[in-house]
């Protein structure tokens, strides 16, 4: 894969918090444009750290990271906000704003981009439709189930059509059915060209999915031979 084809490139990335042990050691991998991959590993294995490094919520102690052709070390200060607008982020806790309706929560990324009201309405409804919550636009987050809240978080992450979607344990709080539904959503976004990187420890959930699985253990990344092979199952999804 040439550098231009890659959405994310890690080259010998190390990370430690303060003087603690290394959370990531010598990590190198690449995610192609339009690819969807999983990062697995026990909790504390460094999955969240890896995603945080991509979202510039943390900086590597050593090594280079490139995202969408940009060197992350060079993105500082005011440019961080503009960079983050290119990434949709989803967390185990969807961190919705309790005092705003579902519609207003999903509209946030469009508001900060300064879109006009009509555009916002159209796009928010499209995003809510995609996650199956169009009928809940006037509801407040507290009245929704965990799965519904997570889907609102996903709608917020994709509403501005970012080229890259990062998800950190998105199914951690969901029952198996809802978790499968969320994973199917990611696949659907991936099929329209969005690059997706999902950190999860729900191995059972991703076993049948046609995606690469990167395994983090003790801060060391290794690639698991997908089983079954992705090429074979991709068309069947």
């Amino acid at each position, binding site marked *: 894969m040439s550098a231009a084809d890659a959405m994310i490139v890690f080259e010998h990335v190390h990370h430690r918090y303060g003087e603690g042990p290394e959370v990531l050691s010598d990590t190198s991998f690449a995610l192609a444009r339009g690819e969807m991959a999983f990062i697995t590993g026990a909790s504390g294995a460094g999955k969240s750290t890896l995603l*945080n490094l991509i*979202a510039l*919520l*943390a900086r590597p102690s050593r090594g280079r990271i490139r995202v969408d052709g940009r060197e992350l070390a060079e993105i500082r200060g*005011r440019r961080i*906000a*503009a*960079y*983050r*607008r*290119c*990434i949709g*982020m989803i967390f185990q806790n969807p*961190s919705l*704003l309790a005092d705003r309706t579902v519609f207003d929560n999903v509209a*946030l*990324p469009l*508001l*900060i*981009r*300064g*879109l*006009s009201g009509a*555009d916002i309405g159209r796009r928010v409804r499209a995003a809510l439709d995609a996650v199956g919550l169009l009928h809940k636009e006037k509801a407040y987050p507290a009245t929704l189930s965990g799965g519904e809240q997570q889907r609102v978080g996903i709608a*917020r992450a994709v509403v501005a*059509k970012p080229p890259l979607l990062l998800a950190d344990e998105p199914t951690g709080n969901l029952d198996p059915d809802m978790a499968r539904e969320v994973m199917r959503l990611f696949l659907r976004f991936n099929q329209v060209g969005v690059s997706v990187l999902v950190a999860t420890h729900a191995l059972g959930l991703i076993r049948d999915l046609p995606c690469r699985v990167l395994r983090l253990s003790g801060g060391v990344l290794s690639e698991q031979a997908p089983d079954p092979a992705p090429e074979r199952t991709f068309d069947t999804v």
Partner: protein
Amino acid sequence: MTPSKRVTDAGPGWAERLAQDHARAIRTTLGAVARRPFGTLLTAFVIGITLALPAGLHTLLANLGGGIGGLPQTLRASLFLKDTVSPERGLTLTREIARRPDVSGTAYISREQALAEFRRYSGLAEALDLLKDNPLPASIVVDADARAPRARIEALFKQLAALPEVEEARYDEQWLTRLQAIVSLIQRLVLLTAAALAVTVLVVIGNTVRLDIENRREEIRVLKLIGAGAGYIRRPFLYSGLWYGLAGAFLACLLVEGGWLALRAPAQRLAALYEGGLALHGLSFEVAMAVFGTGAALGWLGAFWSVTRDLRRIEPG
């Protein structure tokens, strides 16, 4: 960089976008004020009292200063004549002085007139009756033309005081000069007070906005996470500060006007005791505008101060 669809649906042009962003911030912050009017009112009230103090003092001083300015602008000297000077000579002298340049008016007050006046105003009539002789001298009141240079008037008064018929001369100007000096001293004090109170307003608004920021920590965290720029996150807080300042200024104007209404009747009775009558007034338009301008500026500054310090501390991750 490859042009993509994302660029074309970036929406309106930058000017339109800025106006739209500001309109949204204004709507949001005014909505927040409407949702919890009591909290806003409390802060506005503190600011109102703080702003009302210098505005009220200033209005008081403006009235005093106007009062002084409203007094007869002529400078007046009283020439007390020696008892040996006859009333006829006194009258002639009065006419002679009236013909001098820079003199706008003269009046002769005989010993009898002086006594009658003293009797009427002093309330010491019985005491005077005990005296065998009239103790008061005759005098000539000289009004100098106020348009003449001060130095020439002083020279004139000095000449008049040196006249052989004159026992003693007194200038009314002195107490006026002293009063003016006192007023300008108080004016300086008001300025100092205003500066100290401006800092108070700054701290009050800064602290209120700091609490707002604390209450909306989660929102700020999420906004930073999804890539909102510093200007976007800051804007609603700056508008909140502006509203606090303006609401405070409005209350300050109400307080000063209220104080004026309460004091107007006795103040006008007092003013009427001075000849010419002082024209008293409440809060002037200029001062009201200054109060609103100061309130708005301090509100914005206080918010800016808090926001630049506190927003940096809230980081996602």
